[in-house]
């Protein structure tokens, strides 16, 4: 499901029918992926594996949403993690203080994130490149220090303690490990499907135009500022979804969720998996978490190992893994056509 493949599919099918077909194909792939993930507990009793998939869901939603900014729009945010933390804290606090049903807290958190992202975005998206990166980073630090210093509300450096209540709703009990697992997978697949739709919509192509040449886009009548702000808010909402999955998983929220290292990991994931394909960040997520889990088992210097791996991708391949695979496929096919 890479952009390159999608582009090629478009050339084969007539333009008119191709667009609708693409959507059905994506939904089909999503259903199959969900069926595979959801049936996993039937085949394995490994709690560790299910936990791994839940963490992949949280980080995957976050990293893919970051790619909407980095890969599709060319906005490199160094502060995207603030919305991951915001999602976790806002969801946890609503559940702890108000005791509303989980879906209500879920929707309320998305709304809160959207409002805050709109305010922060309105300030940031006017800025270019490095200035955008730094100001988003500054906002991340602002939110992080607010969480630390407002201890009476957020629990300060201890985080939200005492667990997040997870009352059952509609027969779904998220305190049950398998229920939580299935719900995480469902959120991941729905989130990815929604982001895929954004990427393949006319709006998604407007993002690509802005990434390639914002000045030209404005001479076609596109309001660049408004488009950037919209995608900033949309990406924040999906990052916040990832944060909520994380909060449900650990039954709490901690200041690290809003720390700049989360944003850094998001960038790492995108570098590992690649930003030119939709699923690149998802591949990167699995890679990074696998690396994290295996390397920490062998050495306490896992930072060094991770750094070397990142350097290999950045300097060696000069692209993410899925970028590399996609390019290889295209080259092979073009070579085949040439014969």
């Amino acid at each position, binding site marked *: 499901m890479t952009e390159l493949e999608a582009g090629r599919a478009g050339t084969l099918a007539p333009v008119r029918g191709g*667009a609708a077909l693409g959507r059905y194909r994506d939904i089909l792939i999503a259903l199959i992926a969900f069926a595979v993930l959801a049936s996993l507990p039937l085949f394995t009793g490994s709690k560790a594996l299910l936990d791994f998939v839940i963490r992949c869901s949280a980080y995957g939603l976050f990293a893919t949403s970051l790619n909407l900014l980095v890969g599709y729009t060319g906005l490199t945010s160094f502060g995207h993690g603030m919305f991951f933390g915001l999602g976790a804290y806002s969801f946890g606090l609503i559940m702890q203080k108000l005791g509303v049903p989980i879906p209500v807290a879920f929707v309320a958190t998305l709304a809160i994130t959207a409002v805050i992202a709109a305010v922060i975005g309105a300030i940031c998206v006017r800025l270019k490149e490095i200035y955008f990166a730094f100001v988003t980073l500054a906002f991340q630090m602002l939110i992080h220090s607010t969480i630390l210093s407002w201890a009476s509300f957020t629990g300060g450096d201890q985080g939200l303690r005492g667990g997040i209540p997870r009352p059952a709703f509609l027969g779904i009990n998220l305190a049950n490990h398998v229920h939580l697992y299935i719900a995480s997978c469902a959120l991941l697949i729905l989130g990815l499907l929604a982001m895929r739709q954004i990427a393949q919509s006319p*709006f998604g192509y407007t993002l690509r135009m802005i990434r*390639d040449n914002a000045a030209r*886009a404005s*001479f*076609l009548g596109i309001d660049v500022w408004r488009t950037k702000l919209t995608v900033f808010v949309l990406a924040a909402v999906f990052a916040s979804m990832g944060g909520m999955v994380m909060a449900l998983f650990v039954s709490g929220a901690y200041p690290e969720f809003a720390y700049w290292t989360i944003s850094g990991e998001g960038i790492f994931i995108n570098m590992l998996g690649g930003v030119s394909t939709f699923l690149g960040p998802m591949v990167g997520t699995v890679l990074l978490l696998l690396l994290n889990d295996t390397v920490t088992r062998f050495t306490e210097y896992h930072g060094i190992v991770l750094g070397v791996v990142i350097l290999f991708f950045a300097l060696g391949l000069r692209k993410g893994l899925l970028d590399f695979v996609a390019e290889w496929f295209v080259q092979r096919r073009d070579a085949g056509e040439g014969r």
Partner: protein
Amino acid sequence: MLEIRNLAKSFGGVKATNDVSLDFPDGSLTAVIGPNGAGKSTFFNLITGALKPDTGQVLLDGVDLAGRSPPEIVRHGIGRAFQVASIFKSLTVQETMLAAVSADQRSSAVLHRRFPLPETCDRAEHVMELLGLAEKRNRTAATLSHGDQKLLDIALALVLEPKVLLLDEPTAGMGPEERWRMIDKVRELWETQKITVVFIEHDMDIVFKIAPKIVVLCYGRILATGTPDEIRNNSAVIEAYLGTEHAGAAA
């Protein structure tokens, strides 16, 4: 009708555009010439909103567009192409056209449908055919030849169905033969599309051959306007521009 009234723009002490007033009647073809630094590109930038004029008016069918933003001015019907082809390098030719039509039909923020929208296809197809880019529809813009990139840039402006098309040196960076092909294309577009075309050009042979009307800019001012014959025989123009330039070209 595009009317420019007393347009002026200074950068520091330099008057890049100095009290310029011009009329471009509907369906006219006009060449803008002038030595380097004459303010030709600045003039285009002022009309299209890339720069805000200090004073003056840009009237399109009586509506003053001076100082408005580029998207607004484009929507009123002034399209432009650039001296250095300004394209979307990672999109294919076809995607570029479809996305531009989406922008014009105000569907560029649509989230719930798939790109491309069926209603954008006919116009995109038409302009690709018109500019001879249909064969190359699946080529990524970055891989096109220089000439095709310039054509794609013009196609981007044209697909918006503008009333006025401003072309900033459509033949910049081209070889002699390619130049003529490009300028024939421009003339053909002007004849078939019945739009107002204003273009900047350096090559005097081209200008005198195809432009019914010529505007000469020098140091931000209008030095002369008229038919090729009038310009050729204008002593001020010969002194300021043609004399040295042609002597240099002949040498």
